């Protein structure tokens, strides 16, 4: 994708190409900047450096192998890719998922959201050059990865969900450990706030920087925390509940502009911090309501063939709306798996709001968008 802002190019501007690999970029992408002094006058974004042909690869393998591929849609938060595919396939096959499996899915999804937001904070801290908090954040994310390893056997590529449930039941004491981790992170968040969030240096670096207008959010189709930080209240968990999110009481935080103005980089940071708190609140509620029963629909065995049909499933991943259009023609392999990933819209918006900021703020702005180039390029 090459995105060029519509303004004409002035000849007296410095040309600076960044990327595909650069310390200020969160992932492989290429920026072509026209600089007026140190102010960005124009920006072009080119992505595609992480294209792996994921959609084609899914078509060449059996349905069950497609789940393993969806792990790698966004390697940081593997569970969301699996979940959206499973939801779509369950809609095609009209598979009923047992309530226990639904709860396990919610627990894993919210844990992934917390871990993704912790990684977001790591990126933000690296962009402003704060080294110590990075290690604290990664240490606490390790607790969540330990939970994944306990339940699924892997830390990142879980390959845990199946059509009609999950591949294995949660072990004894897992829910208690989830609650322990939540308590730990709740204590740690106070520490993060003291060290980082309310640090004057960080406030000066991130507030009033990279404000995204609600109009731009609408025109570029941004979703997720970035859109909510600008005041657009849209969350799939609330608007189109799936896997039983409607049975729980949680709030969708919106940007309040506490550090500077609504929709700036600091607002996006604070919003994700609040989403971590909300996710832990949700986990606490879910952990009380894990029913005893089967974890996998018994009709769905290893020889299950997805019937012909199509479906479109949406979930709220840590970065925004993740959609999956699945078409099956009754053969052992998927006919088409098309993915709508949230980071594409974020990338589309970059050239339209970075003009006017200083290049020193560019790493902060890019980090605050939480770009997932892996899922944007697929």
């Amino acid at each position, binding site marked *: 994708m090459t995105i060029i802002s519509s303004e004409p190019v002035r000849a007296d501007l410095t040309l600076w*190409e960044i990327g595909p690999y650069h310390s200020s970029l969160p992932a492989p992408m290429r920026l072509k900047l026209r600089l007026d002094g140190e102010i960005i006058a124009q920006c072009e974004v080119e992505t595609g450096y992480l*294209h792996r042909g994921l959609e084609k690869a899914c078509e060449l393998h059996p349905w069950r192998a497609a789940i393993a591929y969806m792990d790698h849609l966004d390697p940081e938060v593997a569970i969301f890719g699996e979940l959206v595919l499973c939801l779509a396939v369950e809609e095609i096959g009209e598979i009923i998922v047992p309530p226990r499996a639904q709860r396990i899915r919610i627990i894993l999804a919210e844990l992934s959201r917390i871990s993704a937001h912790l990684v977001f904070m790591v990126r933000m801290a690296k962009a402003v050059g704060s080294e110590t908090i990075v290690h604290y954040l990664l240490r606490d994310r390790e607790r969540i990865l330990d939970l994944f390893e306990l339940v699924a056997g892997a830390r990142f590529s879980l390959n845990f969900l199946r059509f009609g449930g999950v591949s294995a039941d949660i072990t004894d004491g897992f829910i208690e450990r989830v609650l322990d981790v939540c308590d730990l992170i709740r204590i740690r968040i106070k520490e993060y706030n003291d060290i980082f969030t309310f640090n004057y240096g960080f406030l000066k670096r991130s507030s009033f920087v990279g404000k995204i207008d609600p109009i731009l959010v609408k025109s570029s189709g941004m979703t997720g925390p970035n859109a909510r930080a600008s005041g657009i209240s849209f969350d799939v968990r609330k608007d189109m509940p799936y896997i039983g999110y409607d049975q729980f009481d949680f709030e969708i935080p919106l940007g309040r502009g506490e550090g500077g103005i609504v929709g700036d980089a600091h607002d996006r940071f604070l919003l994700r911090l609040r989403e971590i708190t909300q996710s832990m609140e949700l986990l606490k509620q879910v952990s009380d309501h894990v029913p005893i029963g089967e974890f996998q629909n018994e009709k769905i065995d290893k020889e299950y063939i997805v019937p012909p049909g199509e479906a479109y499933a949406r979930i709220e991943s840590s970065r925004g709306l993740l959609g999956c259009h699945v078409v099956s023609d009754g053969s052992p392999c998927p006919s088409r798996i098309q993915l709508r990933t949230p980071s594409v819209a974020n990338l589309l918006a970059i050239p339209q709001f970075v003009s006017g900021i200083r290049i020193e703020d560019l790493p902060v702005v890019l980090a605050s968008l939480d770009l997932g180039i892996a899922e944007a390029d697929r």
Partner: protein
Amino acid sequence: MDKNALVSRLNKIIPGGVLETRRFGRSENTSIWIEAQAVQKIAMALKMDTEMKLDWLENLSVVEFEKVFIVTYFLRSLITRHSLVIRASAVPVSPGSEFLFPSVRNIWPMGLPMEEEAEEMFGIVFSLNNETQFQVKVNRLPENWKGFPLRKDYVFPSQFEDITHSRSFNKSNQKKSSL
């Protein structure tokens, strides 16, 4: 939300644009099949529709099904929270060749990256003014990649030695400016 009323409204604005109304898969959603040449007009009508206000193209999906390319638009309104699926189909003139399809990037700007991806992967050239210009922009694939990988009749190259792995920014930019 009355889909039949919407269809009749659309029929009034663009006669013959709407082909049929169907359930989308097994879901509650309605999908409206439309004529491929009327996509732009219907898209504009849907965006301007006072009742629906479909201002958000959530997803654009291209599916090849029995050598017919089905373009599906998943629409949604942030104001009225309505959603709609419209679909149109097209057939290439000869197998393996690119073909034109009306673009909606001026109506829903968020459709640009999705259209560009479909262009590269399926060889469907989304054009605004129906001009014959078979120039597919290359962003994801290497520059001298042959064929369109997501088509069903695509054959993987037997050897990858001649395929370059580097792309120059300026080159892709020139292609862009020619469009």
